[in-house]
């Protein structure tokens, strides 16, 4: 089975780092990449740090989460330019990525993870 990882793109450095800590507690073996802010100080997101994070993952297949719309745009551009399989989910960034990570750790497959995420689908 192909390894599946997680990528999280937030507008703020601390949010990304914090979600990373929250998730690793319940998903120690899942590759979780996070990008937060334009940099440690500047709020925003950028295409190249997002692409770098996708490429940095040890997984070929990734589930992607983001906070605000412009993060999604950068994610989409990065996905188009990467040759990994990345699926972006329009779900709450903290709650959604936590759920996905816990389920991945438990060995649940992507289809079943999606069913669970579907319940938290949100217009973002």
């Amino acid at each position, binding site marked *: 089975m192909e390894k599946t990882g997680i990528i999280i793109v937030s507008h703020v450095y601390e949010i990304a780092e914090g979600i990373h800590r929250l998730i690793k507690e319940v998903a120690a073996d899942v590759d979780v990449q996070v990008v937060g802010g*334009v940099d440690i100080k*500047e*709020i*925003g*997101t*950028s*295409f*190249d740090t997002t692409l770098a994070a996708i490429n940095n993952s040890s997984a070929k297949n990734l589930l992607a989460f983001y906070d*605000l*719309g*412009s993060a999604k*745009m*950068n994610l*989409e*551009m990065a996905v188009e330019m990467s040759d990994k399989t990345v699926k972006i989910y329009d779900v709450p960034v903290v709650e959604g990525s936590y759920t996905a990570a816990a389920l991945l750790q438990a060995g649940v497959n992507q289809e079943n993870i999606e069913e669970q995420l579907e319940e938290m689908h949100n217009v973002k």
Partner: protein
Amino acid sequence: MAQTEKWIKSFEHFSKKITDEKSFLNELDSAIGDGDHGSNLTRGVAAVNEKLEQQSYDNLSDLFKDIGMVLVSKVGGASGPLYGSAFISMAKQSKESDDISSLLSSGLDGITKRGKAETGEKTMVDVWAPAVDALKEGTLDQSVIDSALESTKDMKATKGRASYLGDRSIGHIDPGAQSSAYFFESLLEAGVTDE
């Protein structure tokens, strides 16, 4: 003057307007967003200018691609991937044709593909769409740009950060529409639109 030179000239005008009006763009964005649109684009155009000084271009495609890639990397806000996608889209189209209206029509496609906004959603698309239409008919002038920009004032935002405000977004000019107005004014001033 070759098309590449005219486009570079136009980008210089755009850079200057953005940089001069940085505070005004931030102010517009403060009312219905996070107040950084001027700062974002100023950072973006500065990075583009640095790139353009180091390089010379003999075709539009390379020029547009470089501009687009710098913008998506440096702007930081939604306007980064949006203007970036416009230029990357124009880079592709310029291999087919350097006709100004077909180029900018591709630019608009890049924006809508990326941001999924239609006209009437109070975004930069509300300046780009009427400007591209006017270009196709050879009628683009300052008044077309002005009235497109003004039209965003009464719209309710349904895309981007301003959409979180719902009805409270009404009554303000959209910041991205304002920077796009500068963009089309710069094209006129640099004569890119002349045949």
